[in-house]
Structure formats: C-alpha cells, structure tokens
C-alpha cells in the first residue's frame, strides 16, 4: 500500500439538526501519529466512530489501508485496533482471558497474549480479573487488547485520561513504539501536553470542523513570537528583557545574557498548543 493508512475526505455527520462533524478531511500515514485535539463535543468521538465502522458518514469517504470503510468494513476491522475512552473490559474474565477472547474474534490462534501483557507491564496479573485492577492497569490492558491483532491502524480515544503521571508515561511510550513499528495512529485527546509530546502532526477540531492541521512545531512557530525572554538579577533587582530573534543584534544580546553572572532564566516565547487552539477557536480545550 502506497497511499495514506487513513484517508478521510469531506466527511460529515449530523445528530438530527446538530452537525457533529462538518466536512472534514485529513490523512494519516503509516508510522505517523496524528493528534486529534478538541474539547468535549467537538466531534472527536463521532469521527472515531465513523473511522472504525461503528456508523457510516452521512457524506464523504473514508479509506482505511486503501479500502472503503462502508464497502469493506469487516475486512478493515480485522486490521485495526481500537482503544476506547471507556474501560470496556470484561471484568469477570482474567486479563489473559480478555485478550484471548478478542484474539479469537479476529480468528487468531496462538497469539502471544502473555507477551502482550508483559509489554504493558501486566505479566504478573495475567490471571487476575480487571475488576480488581487500578484505573492505570485497566487502561494498559485496554491498550494491550487493541494490539491483539497486530493492527496496522490504531485508534486511541483519550488513552491516558485520568491516569497518574507514571501510568500516562508508560502508555505514551507504548503508543510511540507502535508508531515506530509502522502503525498509523489516530490519537484523540484534549491533553495538549500529550499531543505535543506524541504527535507527528496535530489536527484541531472545533464544532465539527478542522481548524488547523500541522506539526506541533510549525503551529507553535506560526502562532508564537520569535523572541526570548531573559530574567537577570542585577544589584539585587530582577530584570526582564525580551530579545526579538528578528533583530539584527539578537545574537550578541543573547550572548551577553547567557554570560551574565546574574542570569536566572531564559525561555523562548513560542506559543503552547493550548494558546494556539484558543487563538484559533476562541475557546479552551477544557470548555
């Protein structure tokens, strides 16, 4: 397959009168992580539902691995992995039984489910039931479940929501590894830090429309200030200086600042993804 792993063209979806997704288009290449950012109700989950074949778009086309989601839904579903925001595990079945069950649904025998559990740090809990797991453990099991068929495309819906920092870090590392091994990843989140750290590109979605798609770096550069804020302590007083990188003497001024005895901090003035989102949509991600 030479084209993008996910190719979305002009899809829309309405719930009665309300347009949940309004004519959006984007692509995700193999090995790429696209962060899908937007506040609750922006259309992220509806988009995921359409992309995973849970409901057909009202208009537009979706191609996953070069096949149409409506015509080849079942075949596509054999090659995708989905990690839901809800921890929809079978609580009365052990971690290993959960994975074995889903492997069977894909018609796969002899899947190394124990190896998968080891990858997500649950090898010692293979025979324990998720009802006794912490939130982080359940999330890691959910992630392991989404990998049971070695998917070429991964849909991850808020994979670190509500997790403690160490669990979040563990899940992020797993996601990055999957992308490194060639899977296309669509990651929906409203955690800017997560999107910034993980994504090759991010798409901002607001009120069903994509308002920007680019790499985090480009977004920050295009919407931020090319300047550096320097804080110095001079004769007991804190002084702050902003050095514009477009100024002719910017290099010299920074050299002086870095060499100064009273240098306290030095920061670039690039915008955060959150600020860019607010600038573009007029609302915050947690609105």
């Amino acid at each position: 397959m030479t084209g993008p792993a996910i190719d979305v063209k002009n899809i829309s979806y309405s719930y009665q009168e309300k347009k949940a997704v309004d004519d959006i288009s984007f692509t995700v290449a193999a090995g790429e992580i696209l962060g899908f950012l937007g506040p609750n109700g922006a259309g992220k989950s509806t988009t995921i539902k359409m992309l995973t074949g849970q409901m057909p778009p009202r208009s537009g086309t979706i191609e996953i691995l070069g096949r149409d989601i409506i015509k080849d839904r079942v075949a596509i579903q054999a090659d995708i992995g989905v990690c839901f925001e809800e921890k929809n595990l079978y609580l009365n079945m052990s971690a290993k039984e959960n994975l074995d069950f889903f492997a069977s649904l894909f018609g796969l025998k002899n899947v190394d489910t124990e190896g998968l559990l080891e990858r997500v740090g649950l090898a010692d809990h293979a025979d324990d039931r998720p009802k006794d797991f912490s939130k982080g453990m359940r999330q890691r099991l959910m992630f392991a479940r989404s990998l049971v068929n070695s998917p070429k495309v991964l849909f991850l819906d808020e994979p670190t929501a509500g997790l403690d920092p160490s669990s979040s870090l563990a899940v992020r590392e797993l996601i990055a590894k999957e992308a490194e091994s060639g899977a296309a990843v669509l990651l929906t989140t409203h955690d800017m830090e997560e999107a910034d750290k993980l994504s090759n590109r991010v798409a901002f979605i607001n009120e069903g429309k994509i308002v920007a798609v680019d790499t985090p770096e480009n977004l920050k550069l295009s919407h931020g200030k090319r300047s550096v804020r320097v804080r110095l302590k001079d004769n007991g007083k804190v002084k702050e200086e902003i050095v514009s990188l477009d100024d002719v003497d910017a290099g010299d001024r920074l050299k002086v600042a870095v060499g100064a005895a009273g240098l306290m901090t030095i920061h670039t003035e690039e915008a955060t993804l959150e600020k860019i989102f607010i600038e573009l949509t007029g609302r915050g991600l947690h609105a």
Partner: protein
Amino acid sequence: MNRPVSRGSIISTIIRKDLKEFSRDRFFTIMTVAGLIIYAIMFWLLPSTVSETISIGVHQSGLDEMFEEIAAEENGGLEFTSHKSSGALRAALGLGKEEPEQKLNIGLDFPEDFLEKVALGEKTTVKVYTDSNVPPEIRLALSGWVEEMAYSVSGQALPVNPPDEENIVLGEDRIGNQVSFRERMRPMFAYFILMMEIFALGALVAAEIKARTVTAVTVTPARVSDFLAAKVIVGTLVAFTETTLLMLLINSLGTSPLILLTAILLGAVLITGFGLIAGAQGKDFVATLFYCMLFIIPLAIPAFGVLFPGSASVWVKAMPSYGLINTIVGVTSYNEGWSEVLPELSMLFGWCLTVFAVGWFILKRKVESL
C-alpha cells in the same frame, strides 16, 4: 492483512465467553442451582392425591330409612355417617373438645321434632355445618336438598315442577381423575425456571450495554448480528437445559417427551425474546429487574390459572405463556397428544416469532446507537 473469520467461529467464540461469564456470576449460579433443587424438593413434598369423597355426618331421628336409601344410591363421592346426638355430630365435625381422627366435611343436624313439625306444616330449623374447604356451590345444593327432603317427608309436592335434567360435563369429565396440587404446580415450577432466565439473560445483555463491551466486540470482525445471535443461543440453551433438567427431576418427561421438549424449547425462545427486550432497556441491575418483572408478572397469569381453576378469564388464552403452560398441563396431567396440543403449540410458536423479532429489533437498535 488478517484472514477473514467465519460467522460461525465468531458466534461460537461469543457463546463460549457468555457461558463463562454466566458460570462466574455467583448470584445467577446460586439462584439457578438453588431454584432447581428447591423446586424439585417442593414438588415431591406436595400432595400427589386428591380426596374426592365428601363426608357427611347426619344426626336425625325417624329418618333412618330415607338416609339408608340415599346412602345406597349415592356413588358420586358422598359418604354418609349417622350420629346419635347433636353433640356427637359436633364432635365429629371438630367442634368438640377433642380433635376427631377424621373430620367430617359436612354435618346435618335435624332437630328431634323435625318429622312432627314438618308434618304439621310448622317451621323448623336444620343446622347445616360445612367445612371451609367445601365449595360454595355444594353448600347451596345442601340447603336445597334439605328443603326438598322436608317437602318429601310432609308428603307435599315441591312448589315448582323441577325440569328433567341432563348432566353435560364441559370438557373432560374429571370425576375420579382430578388433578392433584402437585400436578397443578408442575407448570408453575417450569415457568419459574424459565422466568429466572429472562432475568439472567436480561442482566447479561444490560451489563454488556452498560459497560460498552458490546462496542469493543463490534469494532472487531464481529457484527452486531453475531453478538445478538450468540445471546439468543445462550439464552435459549440455558433456559431449555435448566427447564428440561427440572422436568427430569420432577419426573415429568416420561409421558410424551417430544411434545414437552418442543414446548420447553419454544418457551425458552419466548423468554429469550423477553430477555433481549429487558436487557436493551435496563440500564443497571435494578432497572433490568424492573423491566423483567413487567414481563414476568403478567406472563405468570396462565400458570396461576392452572393453580386456581376457574379463576382465569378467556383473555388469558391470548397470553404468550398460555400455550406453554397448557401444553405442559395437557401432556403431563391428561396424557394429551400432538393433535390435542397442536393449537396451543402453534399459538406459542406465533408468540415466539413475534416477541423474538421485537427483542432482536430493539436490542439491535440499542447496540447500534451506542
């Protein structure tokens, strides 16, 4: 690219998972096992015979000849005994100080001057004692009988000319072949087991919807129809197996096993349909219980109709469970064959199709809307 998976393989995978979940649900496991054992024990403890004889004690003087004649003619289950005094009669009725060995059902206490007063055309009083178990129609008949006797003794004709009677029994004449309480409870127990499974299946389906595990299943190569088919098979299989097991425990498959198994299978499909509806509506345990009770209570009416003959109205015949209950009663109590139960089975089949289709439709829509 992963290979395509057959529908059969997917459905059997979901069935195995459902059965595993069923067996691990302590509440339903205990309910099911305890239900089977308790119902079987209760069945065998219930009386299996029916006393069809009504014992009538009489205290009178001067009417010996008449009562001897009546006793000699009577073969319809009335047993006459004579008592020397009012006190002896009352004692035999259980109204004395000591409890009699065998209590009379009815007592007729004629006053000592009955003959004289009747002959003189004077008013006299006969005390008629009846046990609370004696049906009201027999109590009324006794009063009429005593009046008739008084006219006869006085040599007068009745004030009206009674018409000639032709006794027509509606339905099968059960004289000498009455259904015992144990027999009457048999369909009730079968119904209880089936109804337990409405709740079990409803809870299983509701849990999948509430936890959204069904969504996780349907983004794999499994379709919504695979999920539904597995639930239908599991529900029917569990309900059919348990009810059949109960029927074996209460020794009720012996007469016409094929008819009974057909009825139980249709009953299992019927309750599966109701289970799908209840499961689709129930958001949690209590809500599922509520929706199950909405079905269980009205569906029990035909079974109560068997328990209390004459209490059910004609509309009961239109109930979905009527065909099931009546077939079980007909086969186990009256040895009915295919030709007799076919109308009931056909009606049950019709209800199965209807309820099943409604259940499938409602649950499918619910799953697709998640």
